[in-house]
């Protein structure tokens, strides 16, 4: 038992997870404040954070609950669409998790978000001899724990603290930029990333609920594949 804990939670995992905590503490706190404002109890937001763990999806769902006009079906459908991109993440991570048990995959998958995906992928690709499935699980579990904690805290202590939301959400943007730049191995990678970004902006005009992220990713990754095959010829 003790050795499992040491394999999952250790110094490397802490070093990998702290930027996520830096973003999740204030972001989860803000989500907790919102949950309290729309009438959820600490227990309710706690259960939701455990079972759902979908940062932006949770924010949208909470504001829909708050509006009073939205039906349960429409809230659930919106959450589904907003979080579809995690399918791309778990497909990508699957390549590093071959041979893991079904139980492992079942627990690990619940912790896949924009942030844990980004951090784990970077560690897997940077040094696969140091990074393994146990540490990846550690990152997911610690990030999820922080998310639950900060949501409940925000719900309980919501009206005491004032959070600068612009600065908070910028923490995660900065993290994405840093992690993105580590993928700039060859020119095509940079090019495809920029193309995907511009595509996302163009699509955001008529695709709602973060679907523009999914659409831009699928198109840009396909373009990358095609261009690479051309270059090989």
């Amino acid at each position: 038992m003790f050795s499992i804990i040491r394999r999952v939670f250790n110094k490397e995992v802490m070093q990998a997870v702290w930027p996520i905590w830096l973003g999740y503490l204030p972001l989860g706190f803000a989500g907790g404040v919102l949950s309290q404002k729309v009438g959820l109890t600490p227990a309710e937001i706690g259960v939701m954070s455990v079972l759902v763990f979908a940062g932006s999806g949770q924010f949208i769902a909470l504001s829909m609950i708050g509006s009073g006009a939205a039906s349960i079906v429409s809230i659930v459908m919106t959450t589904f669409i907003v979080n579809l991109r995690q399918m791309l993440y778990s497909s990508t991570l699957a390549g590093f998790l071959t041979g893991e048990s079904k139980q492992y995959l079942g627990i690990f998958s619940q912790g896949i978000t924009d942030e844990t995906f980004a951090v784990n992928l970077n560690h897997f690709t940077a040094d696969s001899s140091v990074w393994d499935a146990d540490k990846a699980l550690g990152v997911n579990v610690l990030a999820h724990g922080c998310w639950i904690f900060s949501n409940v805290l925000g719900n309980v202590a919501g009206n005491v603290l004032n959070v600068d939301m612009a600065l908070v959400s910028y923490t995660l943007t900065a993290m994405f930029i840093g992690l993105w730049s580590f993928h700039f191995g060859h020119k095509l990678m940079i090019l495809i990333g920029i193309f995907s970004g511009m595509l996302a902006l163009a699509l955001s005009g008529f695709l709602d609920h973060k679907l523009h992220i999914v659409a831009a990713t699928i198109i840009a990754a396909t373009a990358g594949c095609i261009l690479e095959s051309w270059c090989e010829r």
Partner: protein
Amino acid sequence: MSSLDIFYCTLGMCFVTYLPRVLPPLLLANRNISPLLKRWLQYVPTSVFGALVFSEIFIKESGLDMSLLNINLLASLVVLAVAVKTRSLAKSIVCGLLSFWLLQNIIC
């Protein structure tokens, strides 16, 4: 919404967020991934990050903000420079937050 409604809502959200996360690894992890899919997946990270970063920087509630006074954009150039130069995530984030905070107080 009643407590019961919120409970059903939570269960529904759990279902629709967990399935897309867990199905790909369950289906892919223990079999050989085709070379084409592998190649495609190689381009997913840079595409996702590109789409996320551009959206975070340029999309505001009021619409697209392509101006040079966009604080997110200016701070992001700092982050990018620091990240490429130092390859350190910690330094990139700290420099980004500092410049974002400074710009917020200069421009607004």
